[in-house]
């Protein structure tokens, strides 16, 4: 057999040696050119339209420097009582909001799964999720602070509400993705709807539900430090006060504590999730 011949016997034709992946989205070359040039033109004009006040940027850099300087010599002691009160508030609000959020999210999540719920229940649960997800935490916090006054109760309500949107949606999607045959097998034994849920569905989604809950705990703690800024209590309120008073050393201490706690929660939730699989 001469070189270049293939074993399949198709020896008389010459095949191309080059190949390019065909375009997948804009298949028409003319349109492709038009669309890409339009994007480039828009980017150019958009960048040109941004006004930058360079002297203000310079001033900001100086302030930033002071902030970093404070951050590098954090002062834990002079505001420690405020910090500890803020921390306890934040942690309490995080934990209670996560637990309450999970308890409410589970039934909503099940109701929002097409394969478990009738159409009307699906639509109702999906709308609850949509409302919860479309409102950013800070907006909800402002609303609850206006309703119930300053303090961690407003924060607790905010985080619970946000947890519902997050967990129910992901739980619902998880339930929709489960192995149908396992559910079918349980249903075929004559099990009731609730029994199908605990024997066929729960074992399949439980590890992920626990993982998501831990992840949400982590998010809630971080959010609790943000919503404090609009008056919903917790460590965020303490941080806000420190920055308002130009006490960057105390602010640095608070940030370090937040980072530390997030790291601990992140690491331990990762450990637990790995053990659950």
């Amino acid at each position: 057999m001469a070189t270049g011949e293939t074993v399949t016997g198709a020896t008389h034709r010459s095949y191309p040696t080059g190949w390019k992946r065909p375009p997948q989205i804009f298949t028409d070359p003319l349109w492709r050119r038009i669309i890409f040039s339009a994007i480039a033109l828009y980017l150019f004009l958009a960048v040109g339209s941004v006004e930058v006040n360079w002297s203000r940027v310079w001033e900001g850099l100086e302030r930033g420097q002071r902030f970093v300087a404070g951050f590098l010599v954090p002062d834990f002691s002079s505001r420690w009582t405020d910090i500890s009160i803020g921390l306890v508030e934040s942690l309490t609000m995080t934990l209670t909001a996560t637990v309450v959020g999970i308890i409410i999210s589970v039934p909503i999540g099940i109701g929002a799964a097409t394969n478990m719920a009738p159409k009307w229940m699906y639509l109702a649960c999906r709308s609850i999720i949509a409302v919860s997800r479309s409102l950013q935490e800070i907006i909800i916090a402002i609303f609850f602070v206006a309703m119930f006054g300053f303090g961690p109760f407003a924060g607790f309500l905010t985080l619970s509400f946000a947890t519902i949107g997050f967990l129910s949606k992901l739980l619902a999607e998880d339930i929709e993705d489960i192995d149908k045959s396992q559910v079918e097998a349980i249903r075929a034994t004559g099990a009731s709807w609730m029994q199908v849920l605990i024997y066929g569905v729960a074992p399949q989604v439980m590890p992920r539900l626990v993982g998501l809950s831990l992840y949400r705990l982590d998010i809630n703690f971080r959010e609790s430090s943000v919503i404090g800024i609009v008056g919903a209590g917790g460590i965020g309120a303490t941080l806000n006060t420190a920055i308002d008073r130009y006490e960057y050393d105390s602010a640095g201490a608070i940030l370090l504590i937040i980072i530390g706690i997030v790291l601990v929660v992140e690491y331990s939730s990762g450990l637990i999730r790995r053990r659950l699989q």
Partner: protein
Amino acid sequence: MLVLRNLTKQYGAKDVALKDVSLTIGQGEIVGLIGPSGAGKSTLIRCINRLVEPTSGSILLDDVDLASLSTGELRRQRRRIGMIFQEYALVERLTVMENVLSGRLGYVSFWRSYLRKFPANDIRNAFALLDRVGLLAHADKRADALSGGQRQRVGIARALAQEPDLLLVDEPTASLDPKTSRQIMRLITEVCVERGLPAIVNIHDVPLAKQFMQRIVGLRGGEVVFDGKPEALNNDVLTTIYGAEDWTAMRKSHDEDVASENEQAAVMQQVSA
């Protein structure tokens, strides 16, 4: 006794999966259902316990028409019908014992099943069944820790835990090797004979069907095109069911499988003797 009368299933306006299927399956009769993919074998089996809703026709299991039951009544009747699945369909993260006990779900309350507090009788029976299928030592293992053949044995135990009056078996050996397939088929036919249990077995492997079934029903395009003894399944009949193929070659490879299995068995006997 199971009687199907003019069972029809239509998906959408044009897609007819089952066309006027009428069958009678007597007490203790094991029927193999063969046919090409898409012939309606799975649909037929799933119509019987109404995992798929039949479009028309009746399904009489000892004079109860399964096709016309309300939801609650259907649940009660489903308890009488055990099902063994392709790819086992065990709940993978539950233990073997929980999987077998799940066959009793139709008989226990929600709280009992939630707390795993099954009646003593059910538990004793579940252990006995695990012993019967040779998995007594594996009761506490998670189902996903077992091999394919073992999983299907759990599937068989789960179906039998229902103490059913009818067994539906959907491609029980689809993902098993030839030797394990034969062991599983043997186990299924044995337990059916022990209990006088009628069974419908979907099976895509014709030689396996001929080896283990007492009666074979051939389905093509949703219609029954053959119903008779396995011996009557000659090349002409197979061609009516499946279309033209080289049937002699298929039979030869099956004979080789059986021969090698027998050989192995003989060796094992020599070793143990």
